[in-house]
């Protein structure tokens, strides 16, 4: 089914992007990345988005988590 394939394809892209994001150490988890991708696909400017994310991180630093991936912003 094309629907499933699309989702399958989208998931693959997200996978790859997530890997790249990990490699580049962007501190984005998968969910956040998917929201970003959706926002970008809806026309949001990536620069602005990046700025917002950085601002939010500064403003509201995330609490300490056990997992290695997420650090305190």
């Amino acid at each position, binding site marked *: 089914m094309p629907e499933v394939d699309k989702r399958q*394809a989208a998931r*693959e*892209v997200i*996978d*790859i*992007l*997530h*890997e*790249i*994001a*990990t*490699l*580049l*150490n*962007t*501190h*984005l*988890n998968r*969910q*956040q990345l998917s*929201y*970003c*991708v*959706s*926002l*970008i*696909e*809806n*026309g*949001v*400017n*990536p*620069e*602005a*988005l*990046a*700025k*917002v*994310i*950085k*601002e*939010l*991180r500064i*403003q*509201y630093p*995330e*609490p300490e988590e056990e997992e*290695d*991936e997420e650090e305190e*912003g």
Partner: protein
Amino acid sequence: MPQPAQIGALTDELVASITNFSPSTNAQAFKHAKDLAARGLRGYQYGRTNQFDVRAKLDGFDEKFRVLNRDDLANALLERLKELDKVSTKWTPETLSLLLQLSDRPVEKSNVDDLELLKPPQSPSPLTWAEIIADDPLDEEGIWESIDYAAESSEDEKDYRKREKARASEPTPSSSFTEEDSHLDPESYVIPIQKDALLDIRKEQFWRHPAEHQAGGALAEGNHAAKKSASEITELQMIREVLFMLAGLPTTLYTIDTNLREFKINTVFTLGHVVSLTLDDLLSDLGGIGTQIYRLRKWTGNNPPIPLFQTFEAAVMKRLAQFDSSLAGLQSRYLNPEVPVSVSLLELHNEVRGFAGPILQLATLVVAVMPTLSENPFLYLEALFERTSLAQMMSDVGLFQFFARIFLDCLQPYLKPIRIWMEHGELGPDNETFFVFMNDKSSEAASLWHDRYAIRRHLNGELHAPNFLHPAALRIFNTGKSIVFLKELANHHKYTNIAQDEPRLDFETICGEAESLPFAPFSELFGSAFEAWIGSKFSLASTVLRQKLSSECGLWEVLDTFRIVYLGADGSLLQDFADLVFERMDELDSNWNDRYLLTELVHGIYGAVLAPGQAERLVIRRSTTKHRGRSVKGLSAVVVDYNIPWSIANIIQKSSLQIYQRAFGFLLKVYRAKYLLQKVSWNDIQGLGDDSLSRLGLKMRHRLIWSTDVLRTYLTETVFASSTSQMEEALSAADDIDAMAGIHTSYITRLQDLCLLSKNFSPIYQAIMSLLDLVVDFADAHSRRPNASASLAKVQTSQQKRDARRRKLRDRRRSIIPTRQNSSDDGSEDEYDGDAESSTSHDAATSESLYKIQEQFDRLVPFVVAGLKGVSRAGGESAWEMLAERLDWNFKVRCS
């Protein structure tokens, strides 16, 4: 411009995700964050991302990684980018630029190993056949053998398991045996045993461990005493066993004794709440039913050779299947109860007895019938018929319908040869069960009807057919023969008898649709239905045959010919023929009965009168006769033969032709006598000279004429005319050829009797022949007087001489008569002393013969009369009485 709503939603989510704030927990903070985000995102126009810029940046990163000795990172990144290129969308550059902007010192912080953790846990690979077979190879001993399910009971646990495995693995084909590396952990497939379920099942299988259910302690297996002690099972288990037993399956509760073929109860098992005696009774009753049904099942296993039996077996098997399905219904009631059902062996017993009733009766019928089937293959049909009638008399609707249907089912194959015989006149090859068989294949056409086919009978004369078919058997036989006959007539024209739809012989037609018993007895209903069935075929054949016989074969024409030729129906013709024959006889001595001339004569005379083509069939045959001389019997040398066509010959047999010929001979002799008498003229007698002699002569003439006339009238009117008209009437009303042949034969016999031609009447017949010979004598006596007028004068001159002569004659007469009497008894040799030339002796001879004639006449007529009267009193034919009376009148006249 981006869509605000969607973006708003996504923004919320993103915010929530990043800040870990949800609207519910920290509303204000959340809102603040949201506003912040919204403000940031709204707005001013950004240019589109420059993807070459992005590319350059990525390349820069790559270079940087490699330079800084992070090749792994660089390679990983390169790989991912390559993959991404395959699936890149138009937003890819934007996304990449985002990521680049968010990147945070990847050189130091990133770790390739982290990638590993991103992978989701793999789902375990599906189980393959190779793995199963590696686990448990399919080469156990005997696993590929076919299983004999009936042989062992299920007591042997090992067999049970083996059977399970074999059943499971047998039907599936072996898949490819390629060995695969299973990188699986077998431990993870081990499911822990659920011990409780297993214990439950083990408990249900009570037959394996009867010892376990013992309330007391454990008992050794080989202990005989232990086996006899009872083990309890539940009622439901018992019901199941009983149902299986009834279905013919091996069970533990009942053991099958294969020699006697019966079920015996295994008394080990009891119910907890029932006394064993009652239980035994119940179980043995059910076992009895099961035994009979089991025997019936076993009987249906052998293949009988004849289709009749095969149908019977098929019918029985069908009923067994119905029984099995009702058993299955019972089973389902206990397995899947829709309404709560009480488990009761008694109830089961009642029900089983209810619907097993008909099957049990069928079983007893089979047992009764089977041994004698080779002798009388219809016994089972008759037995079924009887049972049906019996069931009807007992007002058992179910049983009646059951048996009626079986009977009609089994009847159908028996009707097939009947149908073929009645429609086509053909017999199947070597059909022993059909009662018609080809008797004489090469019989000639003239005896086709009577000889070619015959009915098969037993030694005691009984018909080889079921007893309910006996009444109709003759009609069936005749129908088939009619078809064969018609086929012969039409020669190559294919004639079949399928005119209209035949009425069906099945249950609905015979007994009606109603559920209740029909009022009329089954034998009547069946008889009438069968008659109708036969009648639909029979009537057509017989009518067509009769029509053909009358029209094409000319039956009536032949009878007419016989009437005219043999029986003298047209007296003038016969007179003509007779006159011609007599003239020849008198004039020619030796060759008067020349065949060809006489045949021509016959053709000439009768050809004008008879139907075209008939006269040519007449032929004069010369037959030797030992009657020489002038006796009437010499006429027997002339015999008129008729060439009967073969189809009519089936009705008018050739043997009857003889009677016709003899009757004709008789009539001809009478005609001869009359002819001769007519030749003796008045003057001849007058010329005798002697008054008393001439008176005597006249008297004799008169009486002889009267006798011959009486005889002729008797023959033509009384005998021929009436019998023939009767016969023709009956013949036109006859049903079929058998009836016609019968009518004709009885007619011929009657004719024979009435004409006094049969052996009983031979004395009387001979007497009459002698009487006719007397006529010849008389005629001779007078014809030997060619010099009558001459001698007359001589006589007239001397009256005294006449007186003396008369005295002399009387004297001589007295002396001669005794000798004449002796020698004239047989009447065949009438020697005349015609050598006496002298007129005196001539006269003497004449008067002598006259007196002789008178005497014999006086003797013969009373004899004939008495004989006829006696016979008519005994036999009853009034015609003889009439003849006797008339001859008597003639006789009594003499007084005057």
